[in-house]
């Protein structure tokens, strides 16, 4: 098992994401539990793009879910933006989730809402001091869909749907964007465009990006690549 040291020379002093001995198991019917994430420690500086690579079932998604507080870890400690995520619950947990953005392989757009409404959807129950629609339009323009705001997901191509999903992930202006195989359902050309878009966010807004991917080319374009196998980190590329 490989241990990693926190921090890299190019980053600022305080890391944005800090994992220490994180562990997650899933019970299996009639057998030993499946260890999805095993004693992972990792530190990610703000403004870096990190690729999380590894074969299927290596624990990439689970690790992203743990960082995004969608799953609760069984052990270890996760700190994001100076908050201990592992200790959050209830309203604080929901508030934390609003500080990060999530992009899924399957887009998970609401089929009944237009592109614009999909982008605004996370804000629906909240009062904001800004114009929700204006921000959504701005984000859609940024991902290159200014002219498709009124389209329903079923009328959009896969690449366009993923752009809507990215715009939606950014609607809360997150400091951290988690992307789980964002290009997995797309052809390579469209996938490249999506990766370009994600990386440009880091460049323009300093958004920290953690992206799970199979694609070594995509991994190579990130600032760091972290490889996982059987729930453990096996190598850290700078």
């Amino acid at each position, binding site marked *: 098992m490989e241990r990693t040291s926190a921090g890299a020379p190019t980053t600022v002093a305080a890391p944005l994401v800090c994992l220490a001995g994180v562990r997650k198991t899933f019970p299996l019917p009639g057998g030993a539990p499946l260890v999805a994430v095993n004693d992972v420690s990792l530190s990610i500086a703000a403004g870096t793009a990190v690729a999380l690579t590894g074969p299927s079932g290596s624990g990439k998604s689970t690790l992203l879910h743990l960082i995004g507080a969608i*799953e609760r870890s069984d052990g270890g400690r996760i700190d994001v933006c100076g908050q201990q995520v592992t200790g959050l619950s209830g309203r604080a947990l929901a508030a934390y989730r609003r500080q990060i953005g*999530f992009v899924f*392989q399957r887009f998970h757009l609401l*089929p*009944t809402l*237009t592109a614009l409404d999909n982008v605004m959807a996370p804000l629906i129950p909240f009062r904001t001091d800004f114009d929700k629609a204006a921000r959504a339009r701005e984000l859609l323009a940024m991902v290159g869909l200014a002219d498709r705001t009124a389209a329903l997901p079923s009328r959009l191509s896969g690449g366009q749907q993923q752009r809507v999903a990215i715009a939606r992930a950014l609607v*809360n202006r997150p400091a951290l964007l988690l992307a789980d*195989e964002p290009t997995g359902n797309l052809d390579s050309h469209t996938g490249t465009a999506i990766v370009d878009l994600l990386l440009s966010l880091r460049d323009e807004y300093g958004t920290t990006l953690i992206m799970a991917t199979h694609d070594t080319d995509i991994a190579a374009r990130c600032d760091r690549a972290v490889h996982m196998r059987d729930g453990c980190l096996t190598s850290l590329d700078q």
Partner: protein
Amino acid sequence: MVLSQWRVRLRRALALLSMIAVAVAGFTLLTGAAVTSRLDTVGTVAANYRPVYDLLVRPKDAVLPPERQRNLVQSGQLAGMRGGITVGQWRQIQAVRGVSVAAPVAMIGYVMRTVPITVDLADQLDPTVERQVLRVQPTWVTDAGLSQIPDGPAYLYVTRNRLDVVPNSELESGGGLPPPEEVDADGQRVKICPAAPSVDEGDWLQPTDLRARSSLTCIGHAGSTDREGKAMRPAVTLVWTVPFLMAAVDPDSEAALAGLDQAVTSGRYFTSAERPTSHRLDGMLYPYSKLPILIADRPQIDGALSIDVQRLNPGATELVRTGSDDQRLRADLGTESGSPVAQRSIAIDEPYRDIVDRMLRPGQLGIEYDMATANTMWLHSFWTVGTPSTVQVEDGLSARPAPYDLKIWGKGAADGGSSRHVPMEFADTSVRGGVAIHRNMSREYAPQAGGINMPDAAMGAVGTFDPAKISLGSALSAVPMDTYFNPGAEGADEASRQALGGQRLAPNANVTGLLSQPPLMLTTMAALPAIFDPGAYSTEPAYPEYQLNTSAPISVVRVRLAGDVGVDLISRERVRVIAEEIAQRTGLQVDITLGSSPTAMTVHYPAGNFGRPDLAVAEPWVQKGVAAVLVRAADRKSVLLSVLVLAVCALAVLNANTAAIRARRIEFGILTCLGWNRRHLLQLMFTEIAGIGLAAGLVGNALALGFAFALGLNIPWSHTLLAIPVAVALALLAGGWPAWRAARPDPGEVIRPAVLGVAARRQAPRRLATLALANLARTPGRTALGATSLMIGVAALTMLLAITFAFRGAVSGTLLGDAVTLQARTVDYIAVAVTIVLGLVSVADVLYLNISERAAEFALFGAVGWSDGMLNRLVVVEAIGMGVIGGTLGAAAGLGGAAAFAGGMTAPIVWCSVAALVSGVAVSAVSVVVPIAMLRRLPTAQLLAEG
């Protein structure tokens, strides 16, 4: 394949199974209970179907407007009836084919009989004083104790000295009564107890005037004798006058109809042929006829006499010794104060028995001569009164005071003599007009010196009867048997019930009050001419409306039909034909009392003069045709309930199946893509559905048995077995349609997302509630499913409430109807419970499926930072939205159905639909509990991750 389906989708299969099981258990229970309830109702009706008489024949003018309007028959009105049916008409009725008994009642009127009440005061005397005055204050207590009517006091002057009285034998005629003289120890004589001066008739007082009803009695020491030479006793005599209502009946018919012959308690029964017998007394110039009379052996009159004895202060003795004006002296004594020395109370039964004894054994009791009582047998005169003067008010009738001149009862006098032969109750409020006196006209009357004016009619009591032994039929079908019985009336509202202290208001001696006593003296139809023949009695006032109806003396005829009469249509038709024939032949009013039941008629009785407050009392009238209405209503309700619950179950199962199959569209699409054809798909689905139906039938059977046992329902186990085939049939029928639709062989259509966005762009959802409503609007299929479940429930509940209310409305208000409604209550509760449970289960089911279908969506919202509360709100708003849509549609549908069923929109039906709507929305809000619990357990990460 099927088995693996069930295993994989175990929860889904279980949900569908329990849905069908609950539905068929409900169906089985409810149909079982409805059938049992119908049988109970019909059984109760049949058992209480036949009253003592089947038809009531009256003169047309005897029918009151509320009777016609509300299909009622009045009761307790006999006393006010004046005849109107001829003996010929009665014979005509008897001759109608199918008539077994036609029993007439001919009202005669009130006869007054009086007995003395001797109040012995020996124990109350003070032996130490020479002279003393005692006051005996009588108070009449009636109307369940509410009325306390003070009578004129009787004064007793007692001296230890001798009292000299001029004996009757030495009285000079026309000289008036000389007062007695008290002779004291030194021989001094003082005239005491002045006699009443003779007063012109014009100056006589009303018979209830207290000045005319007080008396003064003076007695001396033991050696003193009265005018008849008897030793004086320290006692005063009060009188008790009882009015007896007299009617003529036909003895044979009464025996056949009500078993009057079996109710005789002393003496003998009379026969139909029994006419008045002719007699002549020694020295009497003409014969008199004696009417055979049967007397009730109990009074059925509410009345008691309370007697207070006071010793007056010594000053009172001086008043007696110095007073010279009788009336002034009694008035002065009335102002004297005294101290109570004794109190006693006498119930009416005592004097009543005394009167009956005197009538049964005239001249054998050694009764002392008394103006009041010597004439026990003579029928000098009798009185008739009218019906209560009433106006129709919202809730029944209101009796109006009808004042009249009380001198019609007795001329009154200044001396307290004959005026006391009138019940003091007559001073209370009158609500009956038309009081007339009918005086005997001695046909050969010729005044003779020393002769006494004797009437030529007398009453010869042959025996007594006990009204309690008369056959009245069952309480639930009792018809007015006014001839024997007046049950009185209980309070119709809370205030009246409280005032009456839970007792019933009963008839009293005030014959012009609201309630009249039943006839206490019965004579024969054959004896009627002695009273009704022209020239027998003269009526005063001499107006035509007061005259006796000599040509048509019969007031009512009660008819009993021959043979058995059932509750079935043919029997009812036979009765109707006979009734019509009687009406046609005689031109009289014929009411069918067969299948009727007592109902309450509210009558407002104005306050009395002696403490009785305004009362609203419920007179026991009779509602006609109750049995037929009940049987019809029970039949209809039973059918409606069964149809309703079957429809609800079918729709609920249809809904559940539709939802279940919707959730598997993708699976079917994949199977189609894999080369399955429609037949394969249908086979798969029908096998699944039939299997679930069978299992549900077994569970439903067990549930029905358990509930039937727990609720104590008498449902045969064979009926609960019905649950199995019903469940399979229901599952196949209700599952068939959605399966048929889902098995379309177009894989593209099947595999397309269940929820297709509609391009029409409306206001974007900017708030959670709007998002929820937008979800409803943009997923019409799913919304329709949820709303339909609720619509079915709410419509069913509305219909059910309407059916129940309609049933109660049709049958309640009568004793029989109330008994039946009480019996039917269980089935009503079960029906409501089944409907609500089905509604709850199907809405929860739809919401559950909704959430399963949209699990990823909810997971996403969780991932972007929505709190649990927000997600819950989303579900609740959607559920309530569905509830309002479905509930409103259901209430409208139910309202329409109920209105069509009831033949119009009534306020209760509207309220039913509103209640059903509210409960529908409530049910949908409550039903989110399960889906919300499910939300908590959503595997968010799994849903969001690529599988």
